[in-house]
């Protein structure tokens, strides 16, 4: 992948908040300044995504902006790889920290290529290298360089602009990225896609990322670590999302993560975490006699018809598989949703309910069938994972939801 061409790729830094406090004078608060931050201490290890989440006015954006010193702390320290950010030259510091905001903040008078190459230009890279880097990054975020390089921001959709924003933040390969509600201004479908793409990108880049959102679902999905903040800039709980869902530290955290936190844990597990289940398959053109014997022996009453490359064509009801004859694509009934090992259980369950089918088909990158997932398998998984107390309630809720659909 193109990112690996950069020599310094996968460089990341540790970010440590040490008793950081920010207080605004009463006059500033009256002007609607962001909430204060109170004695904040936590450490984000290099290469991890830490999501700061909380209701508005909890100081999450203020905390983020203290890292690149858009806001200076009143007291306490923020250490980047052990070095106090306050001791650094502020412009040099900022050029080493990527910054992505909800409104993107692209420069309207510069082409997309120039926008992406902003920090490299500030750092004095030669023109040819800047151009090459901009093209590389546009490709990385899924925008064709030849098409987009010379356009202006006004000519792009919201989702495209946000991709450019991410590319621009990555331009000088910073060890740290700060992202303030980066996907908040795009519609839910685009947001979902951008989130997934970003997580895939992060697998290669392994930056240290601090990510602000007010959306607990986004926090659970994006974060290796989640810092739940509450009004007054107090850290309510800090830890991996699964731990926060399983063991909320206070009533506030329990309320904030919601009563459906059992269901939310579905977004933490992926199809690949389930025990595999292989369906009975047959190739189009196979004789149906042997297939009939196999499908009658399997508890799942449908046969999965595949093509020569083991890619799924559709299901055949076992009652339609007669004793002699040939299986053909015309017998197949419409396809189930296609999933892969990275699909979250939440998405998988939602797709199954939406398509009103019994099973989703798991395929690999080449589209070959790897297995199937049923709603029953997902419910079994919740039952096994949940604590005894939460267990019954969440499984019942899910079962009720499945029954309604």
């Amino acid at each position, binding site marked *: 992948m193109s990112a690996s061409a950069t020599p310094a790729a996968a460089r990341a830094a540790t970010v440590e908040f040490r008793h950081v406090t920010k207080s605004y004078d009463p006059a500033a608060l009256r002007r609607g300044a962001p909430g204060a931050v109170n004695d904040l201490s936590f450490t984000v290890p290099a290469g991890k995504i830490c999501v700061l989440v909380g209701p508005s006015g909890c100081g999450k954006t203020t905390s983020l902006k203290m890292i*690149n010193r*858009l806001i200076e702390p009143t007291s306490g320290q923020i250490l980047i790889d052990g070095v106090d950010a306050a001791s650094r030259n*502020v*412009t*040099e*510091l*900022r*050029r080493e*920290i990527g*910054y992505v*905001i909800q*409104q*993107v*903040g*692209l*420069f*309207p*008078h*510069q*082409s997309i290529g120039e926008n992406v190459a*902003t*920090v490299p230009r*500030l750092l004095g890279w030669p023109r040819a290298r800047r151009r090459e880097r901009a093209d590389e990054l546009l490709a990385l975020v899924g925008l064709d360089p030849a098409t987009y390089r010379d356009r*202006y*921001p*006004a*000519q792009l959709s919201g989702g495209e602009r946000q991709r450019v924003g991410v590319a*621009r933040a990555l331009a000088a390969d910073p060890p740290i990225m*700060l992202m303030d509600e980066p996907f908040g201004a795009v519609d839910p479908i685009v947001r979902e896609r951008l989130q997934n793409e970003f997580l895939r990108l992060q697998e290669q880049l392994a930056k240290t990322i601090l990510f602000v959102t007010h959306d607990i679902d986004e926090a659970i999905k994006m974060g290796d670590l989640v810092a739940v903040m509450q009004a007054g800039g107090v850290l309510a709980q800090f830890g991996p999302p699964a731990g926060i869902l399983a063991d909320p530290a206070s009533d506030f955290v329990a309320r904030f993560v919601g009563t459906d936190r059992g269901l939310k844990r579905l977004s933490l597990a992926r199809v690949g975490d389930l025990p595999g289940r292989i369906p009975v398959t047959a190739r189009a053109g196979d004789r149906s006699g042997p297939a009939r014997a196999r499908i009658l022996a399997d508890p799942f009453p449908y046969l999965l018809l595949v093509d020569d490359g083991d890619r799924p064509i559709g299901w055949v009801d076992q009652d339609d598989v007669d004793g002699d004859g040939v299986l053909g694509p015309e017998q197949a009934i419409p396809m189930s949703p296609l999933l892969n090992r990275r699909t979250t259980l939440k998405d998988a369950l939602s797709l199954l309910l939406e398509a009103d089918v019994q099973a989703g088909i798991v395929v690999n990158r080449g589209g070959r069938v790897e297995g199937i997932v049923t709603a029953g398998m997902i419910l079994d998984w919740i039952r096994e994972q949940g604590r005894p107390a939460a267990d019954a309630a969440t499984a019942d809720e899910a079962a009720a939801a499945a029954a309604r659909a």
Partner: protein
Amino acid sequence: MLDWGWIGDHLPQLAFRTAQHLELAAIALAIGFAISFAIGVAAARWRVLYPPSAAIAGIVFTIPSLALFAAFVPATGLSILTAEIPLVLYTLVILLRNVVAGFDAVPADVLEAADAMGFTRGRRLLRIELPLAVPLIVAGLRVASVSTIGLVSITAILGDALGGLGFFIYEGMTRFFATEIAVGAVPTIVLALVADRLFLWLERAITPWSRRTRTATAG
């Protein structure tokens, strides 16, 4: 209706007065722009400067132009300075407002992004704020050029040495000679229209990134 013979006889004067008209307008615009730009950049940086400078400019605009020209005669006589001072003051009303509005219109998220990426203050002003303020600044120049070209005619009351094309209008009025009035008025209108088109073209040429043509808010 028009005395074409008189026009034919006075072509050299017409050329001289047209050039003088343009010169008087250009000097006023150039000085007015320099002052507005300096104050505008300062006001964009220190917002407290904006209300007083805007208020003073607004008051100047309410003074009748004839009175303003007359007011400087005791101090500066019938010199070019007497003509230019009021002309410059009138351009300030329009230009100052547009320069400040231009800097003010730079979106906050763009400034925040620039700061966060490590722009220094000066570099941000030069590379980000100034280019983004240009459409409104040029729009202001456009309105100011049209208004100044009109006002230059009034400097004819300061004597034969000034006035540009206004010289013909003033003299034509005292002689009740319609042809001479037209010889002053028609080219003035043409000059104003040309200036208007020229700045409109300039505005579009230097902002290829702006799909919509921004309109002047001054006036």
